[in-house]
């Protein structure tokens, strides 16, 4: 796409169809998002919000249609430029907070921040050496958010990101999302609660 400025990205899906377990979840779904934009995917339970995020993340294969990314790093595939924050938080209870975070930082690679700094941002600096198994649900969510900060990726795919976060945590997270967008990032979030930032709504499967 020639109308994109340097460093800008456009993510789009055309006629996406998703089939899971023999049941058609949605069909003919179109969407588009550009750098600096947040898209809130809304819809009733079971309408396919999570499925859409997993399609974009390459964790599901679309039964029809395609997803295209214009701009971005030409050397990398779309999933490699995405952060996926799902229901399951990818934390090992036996490892400490710091070990969990440094593992993902080393494994995911690329440009990254100091892990202590991102732990301080999400308010977990006091728990660095605590095994992740002792964390509360909200703290686990904060630790997952620290992963998004430590490793820099342009596209954030968030599944119910504010779940289990307290009010202060939601404010903190809103700030993080705004900062990500201002750096030219893109956010696609499946959500029931308001995201806390300006976002465009993408409704799946009719009105809730």
């Amino acid at each position, binding site marked *: 796409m020639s109308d994109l400025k340097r460093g800008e990205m456009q993510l789009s899906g055309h006629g996406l169809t998703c089939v899971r377990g023999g049941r058609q979840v949605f069909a003919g779904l179109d969407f588009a998002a550009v750098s600096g934009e947040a898209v809130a995917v809304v819809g009733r339970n079971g309408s396919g919000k999570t499925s859409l995020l997993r399609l974009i993340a390459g*964790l599901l*294969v679309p039964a029809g249609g395609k997803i295209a990314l214009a701009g971005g790093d030409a050397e990398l595939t779309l999933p*490699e430029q995405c952060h*996926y924050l799902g*229901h399951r938080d990818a*934390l*090992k209870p036996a490892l400490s907070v710091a*070990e969990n975070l440094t593992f993902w930082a080393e*494994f995911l690679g690329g440009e990254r921040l100091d892990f202590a700094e991102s732990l301080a941002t999400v308010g977990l600096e006091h728990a660095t050496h605590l095994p992740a198994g002792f964390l509360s649900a909200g703290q686990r969510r904060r630790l997952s958010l620290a992963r998004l900060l430590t490793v820099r990726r342009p596209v954030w795919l968030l599944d119910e990101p504010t779940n289990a976060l307290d009010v202060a945590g939601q404010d903190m997270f809103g700030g993080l999302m705004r900062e990500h967008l201002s750096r030219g990032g893109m956010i696609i979030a499946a959500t029931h609660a308001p995201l806390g930032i300006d976002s465009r709504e993408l409704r799946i499967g009719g009105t809730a």
Partner: protein
Amino acid sequence: MTALSALIRRDIRIALRVGGGALVGVLFFLTVVVLMPFAVGPDLALLSRLGPAILWLGALLASLLTLDRLFMADHEDGSLDLITMSRTPLELACAAKALAHWLAAGLPLIVATPVLGLLLNLDMVATGAVALTLLAGTPALTFTGMIGAALAVTLHRGGLLMAVLVLPLSIPVLIFGVAASQAVIVGPMTFGAPFSILCALSLVSLVIGPFAAAASLRHGLD
């Protein structure tokens, strides 16, 4: 490379922590082998003839015991999603996980073998031969077992299915592993021939295992 070494270090660390699988495997191996002399009775000649077979069976079952969690744990907590999405090829990530599993759960079995050899009336040479065949053969058990572990995730069934899938694949390894050890103890064939085949089996599984496991994991995405 950083990514793979990080994955290996993480898996080893988890295996060695409380609740990890490494110690469970060794203890199971120990239990199986210790029980055998009680079952077979005080016939020392018979015990030393059966010794290599008992050690090999114990090692096989012990490695099977911990293998089914190889991908299941990562699948349940969502780590597998992130591993699949990452810049590291899934094949290499699978190989790294298998290597970590072998270092944490396979190597301790080999270290324990000389001690257990005493219980089975094996002399130094025989124990050394069994340990050597285990060193060459257990990678094959881990890397073929990994295919079953990946299928268990894909099919959402763990445990018994895994044993049914993996045990037939490990029969050749068992045959040549025991044959090589028996060659040293009772003869008359040479140690070299079955041992070379055992090494070949390990090398083949080292190549096939990661590709088959990664293909299975990709196919089972959901």
